[in-house]
């Protein structure tokens, strides 16, 4: 029972979320940099994001995220969106190690300001 709760918590990315909470403030600025960096998140390739130039249109505009997703959900989307939608074209940033846990955590900080 306890192990299954733990496993679910891990799956939801709660462990990431908790360790990340401490860094939240400085994280947002760093997260924005990572999200816009072409060699890192490169999120603008597909998403319109406030403050970013030349966005693509493959994904939805990233806005009002805080009201719709909590940290764990955002972390999960970044980690591997194919678990929510097997056919998504969004790259599995965590699973395929395009971004580290810390980088994802910083980007989630940034997403929560949108």
């Amino acid at each position: 029972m306890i192990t299954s709760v733990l496993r679910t918590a891990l799956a939801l990315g709660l462990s990431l979320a908790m360790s990340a909470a401490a860094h939240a403030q400085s994280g947002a600025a760093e997260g924005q940099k990572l999200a816009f960096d072409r060699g890192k998140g490169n999120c603008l390739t597909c998403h319109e994001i406030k403050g970013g130039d030349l966005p693509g249109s493959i994904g939805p505009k990233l806005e009002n995220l805080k009201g719709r997703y909590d940290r764990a959900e955002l972390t999960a989307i970044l980690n591997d969106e194919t678990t929510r939608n097997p056919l998504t074209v969004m790259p599995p940033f965590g699973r395929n190690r395009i971004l580290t846990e810390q980088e994802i955590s910083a980007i989630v900080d940034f997403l929560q300001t949108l």
Partner: protein
Amino acid sequence: MSATRLILSVALALGLGASAVAAADRPDPVADAKAFQDYFVKKFPKVAFDDFVNGPYSMNADMRRQWEEKEQFPPYEFALEAGKEMFAKPFKNGKTYADCFPNGGIGIRQNYPYFDDKEGKVITLELALNRCREANGEAPYSYVKDEMASLTAYMAFTSRGKRFDIKIPDDPRALEAYEKGKEYFYTRRGQLNFSCASCHVQSPGERIRAEILAPALGILNAMPIYRSEWSGMGTISRRIVTCNSQTRAVPLEPQSDEYRNLEYYLSYVSNGLPVSGPGARP
């Protein structure tokens, strides 16, 4: 853009409509091609069927206007001229390219690639050109640019308006080549986990940064193309290798079996669309 719609549309594109699922164990290219074409026609009701060969221009009015202005002085003109001269110039042994091809190589682009039953493999136009050179004692050209692009530009130009007519002969190896090409097209690969279909079936018409994604229907009909970003011409091989590397996948050798099968699949499902090459892209 909803997930369900996406799943549905991809399933359709893959030819997994209700009837196709029932017969899934038996590959059916005719049904595939129909489902594939219907998917794009339904997704873009305002795009005329023949216009799909114009890639990103069929998807976006602004880009189209700029392109039409540019076509007054097409940037592939120099390659076309060069290709015409090269095509006519005899090899050291006195033979020419015309000796290697049906109809002297004129107006035949729409029949490539074809399945060769002696070899049991797919033969693309680029491959046939290099084989022609080698058979006549000349060194093969690089598959990705300059000379190869010039030759294929000329051969496409003499075939403009002719409709793709790719055949799958009654030979299990041909069907297998087709199936393998299809599988390659829909398989995700590389760190970014994209398949060809992620961009050219799921997202045509969308912007990836500033570029508008071309639809997979008719995607080879305009090749080779001039691209400002390349400051020059590129062949089918060059474009596919570029797309593979952009997704942080390791590209294969040009004219590897995989790419030849891929080209066979993509060309077959575009049957009925006219040759429009050479093309120009921003």
